[in-house]
């Protein structure tokens, strides 16, 4: 297992290296000279220009520039953003990254769960109305034109029904006079969320099979109590209403991203289930007199999960693209919108920086999938 993970880690480092190289040469290959463009940008004061020119080696030959670029990238120096001058690219990205991560991870987790749940259900009862309905609506959502679908969601839930805000990260009216910054509140929210997930896992881990037959009885109440305590604690704090505002802005993008991405997992799970359902161990499980639900979940679906997790990489990358589009539509100030704005305003340092980070995101997706796979398949775990 260690060797497997080490090999994968090596491959990923190589991939990252290639992504950085690729962005560098793409930018070099574009019509017009990046070096001149960078150095002549009127947004920058003359002394900054001179300084940049030196630190990026813009007067040196291409291969030296490349080496400097590599060194800078891996030390986190992406230069200064034209558009957000004088903030360094890294600072802009550090602010935007968690916002995308939350959007993307929540939507992916929820859509994976829903997709897997529906997929196993429609495979188990083949040919039912549910199969037709789920396949058609799933494929339609999956291939729906994401921007149009996002705008439709905004129109229905924000304009017509008025339940949720139209877009963006927060409502300036609510935040006027607030003593804390949005990033401050948001990072507290992130910590709370992460702590809750860790807590839930620990509870599951400790109470799993406490020596009796049947499910452990305390798990659901404990996690439920924690889930209730969190909003109460936030409500009592003086920044609770600010967090609520951010939360309200998060709902629509997350729901939209979930809706467009669950179908991929669903259709894949269905196919994978149809194959595992023919396996002998599923027949054996049924012969043992296990309830159908146990046969389906513990045996058929549990094995069907393996190929689904393998291609989770594709779903995650699909979701990264999806979140870029969704952020554009909902004006959610994350990595995706940063990239779009940078592209529109020809803020090349920021374009390169966000591309590298989006590449990092997809590598992260690979890592998650690898670790999950190792956890799920004992044949790899014990090798």
């Amino acid at each position: 297992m260690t060797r497997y993970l080490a090999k994968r880690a090596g491959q990923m480092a190589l991939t990252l290296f290639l992504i950085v190289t690729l962005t560098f040469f793409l930018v070099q290959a574009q019509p017009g000279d990046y070096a001149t463009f960078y150095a002549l940008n009127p947004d920058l004061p003359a002394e900054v220009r001179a300084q940049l020119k030196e630190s990026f080696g813009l007067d040196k030959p291409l291969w030296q520039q490349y080496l400097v670029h590599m060194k800078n990238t891996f030390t986190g120096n992406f230069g200064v953003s034209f558009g957000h001058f004088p903030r360094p690219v890294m600072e802009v990205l550090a602010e935007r990254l968690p916002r995308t991560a939350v959007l993307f991870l929540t939507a992916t987790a929820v859509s994976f769960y829903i997709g897997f749940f529906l997929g196993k259900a429609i495979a188990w009862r083949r040919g039912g109305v549910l199969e037709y309905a789920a396949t058609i609506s799933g494929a339609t959502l999956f291939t729906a034109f994401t921007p149009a679908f996002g705008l439709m969601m905004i129109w229905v839930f924000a304009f017509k029904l008025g339940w949720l805000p139209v877009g963006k990260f927060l409502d300036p009216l609510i935040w006027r006079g607030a003593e804390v910054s949005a990033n401050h509140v948001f990072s507290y929210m992130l910590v709370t969320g992460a702590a809750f997930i860790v807590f839930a896992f620990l509870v599951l881990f400790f109470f799993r099979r406490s020596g009796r037959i049947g499910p452990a009885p305390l798990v659901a109440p404990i996690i439920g109590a924690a889930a209730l305590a969190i909003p109460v604690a936030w409500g009592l704090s003086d920044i609770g209403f600010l967090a609520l505002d951010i939360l309200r802005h998060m709902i629509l993008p997350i729901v939209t991203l979930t809706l467009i991405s669950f179908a991929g997992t669903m259709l894949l799970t269905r196919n994978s289930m149809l194959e595992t359902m023919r396996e002998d161990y599923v027949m054996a499980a049924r012969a043992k007199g296990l309830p159908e639900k146990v046969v389906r979940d513990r045996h058929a679906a549990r094995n069907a999960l393996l190929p689904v997790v393998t291609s989770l990489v594709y779903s995650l990358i699909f979701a990264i693209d999806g979140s870029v589009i969704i952020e554009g539509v909902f004006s959610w100030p994350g990595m995706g919108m940063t990239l779009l704005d940078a592209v529109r305003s020809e803020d090349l340092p920021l374009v390169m920086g966000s591309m590298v980070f989006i590449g990092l995101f997809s590598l992260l997706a690979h890592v998650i999938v690898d670790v999950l796979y190792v956890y799920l398949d004992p044949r790899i775990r014990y090798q």
Partner: protein
Amino acid sequence: MITPQPDHHVVIGGPSGSPEPPLVDLHPGRSQMAMARARLALRSFRGGWAIFVESRIGVLSLATIVLFALMAISHPILMATVWDAEVYDPVTGYAFDRLEHPSPPNWRHPLGTDPLGRDVLSQLLSSTRSEFILGITAALVTVGIATTVGAVAAYYGGLVDSLFMRLADLIIALPGISLLIVLSALFKLNLFYLALIIGILGGFGGTAIILKSQALSIRVKPYIEAARVAGGGHSHIILVHIIPNLLPLSLLYMMFTVTGAIFAEAVLSFLGLLDLRMSWGIMIHTANTGGYLLGGTRYWWLIVPAGASITFLCSAFYLVGRALDEVVNPRLRRHTA
């Protein structure tokens, strides 16, 4: 089991239906061989078709694609016969007969006009043609590359194989739309370049991996060995035996590529990053920049026809691909027989 389990890797179409016996006749006439191949191909095509039509969704989707194809053909005909270019040209036309734009559907403009006074139906139909050109070009490039790469990598193995597979790993690790967004910022992309880039990314990417693993399973079949014993050279075996057997799966992945290409074009056009004359994405982009999208149902004709066309054509190609998957992959079929 009462009936024999079908081979997991049986491939329809091409001469693969039954392992061909190349040793039966040592000097068959070329035309005779071709005839026999054609007959076999026809038979397995019929068998595949019978399975395909069992999937109602697949047939419905195929009908949708045909409908869109008819729409694409109808535009030049309409322009040549009943539509006056000054009014109905999708890009430069202007509907003088209306005082306000965008104007709702009426008998002269069945889908109304856009904010710039152009006929929406004409835009929709002319875009259909571009979408087909884009989708099919991208799919042909993808499948052309992927089939060659897959067959070559599987046949030769070794360094060639690992080189292509590492490249594919790299490409699938990249989020495609994001990469296209970056590329469109750096270069001016038109329809042809877009199709080419999508095709190259797909062809060296995931599709190559899938076709390679299929080619690997073909490579170990007895008839390949027989062909080698009979004195077939490398290129002969790859061209005559491996590639034809990859075609059904290639066809399947062409469908998925078309979906991806149309989708990517629409997203990039919507974001205003492409250099195209007219497309469904641009129609929505025009409506969006004019602020008409959030008018909701009031200006429905600006968004619904184009949005629905993208969705329907994309999902039609996708669902045809899935129905083909059931033909190509016997394990997904309902009955074992």
